């Protein structure tokens, strides 16, 4: 399946295939769903099992669980302020879900559920709805003042209000496309260079094997880079969510 008819097939890795047989097919339980469950299981295991010993001097697993907690907690409280504590579980769930989704994609034969725009847009839309509902609950109709900054000349209202509304509505789009595009691009690159390794390696004997080391070296570097991107994109998603929460709580 590396090369079908001399063309590089970099996209079929993103196809959804049902698992768990006929039942899985009936409820649309695909490998993507299985990886989501695996991610949730791993996060839950880390956070519950990691601190189950409640050690004063933490071991490795407990230190990992605690530093994840403190990392996201600092992020949320740093951005939103003390009122942000309420939203910390939400941002933490988002961060860990996306981080583990991205990292599971780096495991051989694993699937990257964050490479699906449906998933990333689902999460971004959830963030959008949650943020808007929080803003409406805190500020009521004053929330709509967000679209027209105080002190701006009234004459510019027909210009400013549409711009502000469009920028507000485009948040879930940019948030979801950023994560989706990063993960797709990374995995397409990996697949393309992996296909080069196979194509060149099987093409021309010893010379081919020597030539194949070059895309292999590129792939090794790419994997390191993708691990960075996996973390970075989860961080970006979490910090943008925190910034939107800040706007919802403080209105600018």
């Amino acid at each position, binding site marked *: 399946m590396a090369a079908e008819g001399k063309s590089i097939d970099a996209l079929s890795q993103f196809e959804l295939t049902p*698992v768990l047989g006929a039942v899985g097919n009936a409820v649309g339980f695909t490998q993507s769903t299985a990886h989501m*469950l695996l991610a949730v299981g791993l996060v*839950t295991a880390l956070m519950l099992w990691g601190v189950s010993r409640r050690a004063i001097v933490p071991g490795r697993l407990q230190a990992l669980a605690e530093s994840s907690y403190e990392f996201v907690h600092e992020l949320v409280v740093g951005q939103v302020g003390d009122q942000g504590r309420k939203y910390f579980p*939400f941002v933490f769930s988002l961060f860990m879900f996306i981080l583990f989704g991205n990292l599971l994609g780096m495991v051989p*034969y694993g699937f990257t559920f964050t*490479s699906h*725009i449906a998933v990333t847009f689902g999460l971004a839309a959830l963030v959008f709805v949650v943020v808007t509902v929080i803003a409406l609950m805190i500020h009521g109709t004053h929330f709509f003042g967000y679209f027209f900054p105080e002190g701006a000349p009234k004459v510019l209202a027909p210009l400013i209000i549409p711009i502000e509304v469009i920028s507000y509505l485009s948040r879930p789009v940019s948030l979801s496309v950023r994560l989706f595009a990063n993960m*797709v691009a990374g995995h397409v690159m990996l697949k393309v260079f992996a296909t080069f390794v196979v194509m060149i390696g099987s093409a021309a004997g010893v010379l081919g094997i020597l030539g194949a080391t070059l895309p292999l070296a590129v792939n090794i570097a790419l994997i390191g880079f993708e691990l960075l991107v996996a973390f970075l994109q989860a961080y970006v998603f979490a910090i943008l969510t925190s910034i939107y929460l800040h706007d919802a709580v403080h209105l600018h």
Partner: protein
Amino acid sequence: MSPRALKPWVLTATVALLALAPRLALAADTHPGEPVTGMPQLAFGHPEQGRYLIANIVWLFIIFGVLYYVMAQYALPAVGNVLEARRAHIEGDLEQAQAAKLRADAAMAEHQAGTARARAEAQASVANAAQQAQAEAASKAEALNARLNAQIAAAEERITASRDSAMGALRSVAADTAEALVTRLTGLADRAAVEQAVGAELAARGRA
């Protein structure tokens, strides 16, 4: 992670996963039906992929909801409790250390005050003894001086008396000698005139 820390069960699990995963992946990799054109992520119109994509979104909200519930209800409070317990433990230790330090400081201050008091007492008694000794020495010296002065005065008196008597004898001896000399030279002598001349001569030399 050092190789030593790789536990046997981790190794076994990894090997088993690596051995099984290709079979699972290949088993799942059979695509029945019509081929997917373009990006599978956007194939909402494809009969199977479209259905799976929609199902994927539903599953996403269910699974993410479960994650949020578990995190918010159980996991994060547990971690927060551990962190809080550690903070309280450290703060308690610090408070204890602070209290111990305060006690130590108080003991130190007491000790220093005691030392200062003892030193002051010692200095006072030393000064007292020195003053007493000085006064005693001064009174002794005064008594000695007085005695010596008295002795000196007595001696001077004696000397004056001796000189006076000696001076008195000088006049009569001088008069006698002068009279004898005058008698020898002239054959007669007027005792009164000789004594007058001797007195005048002695007075001229400052011995009268």
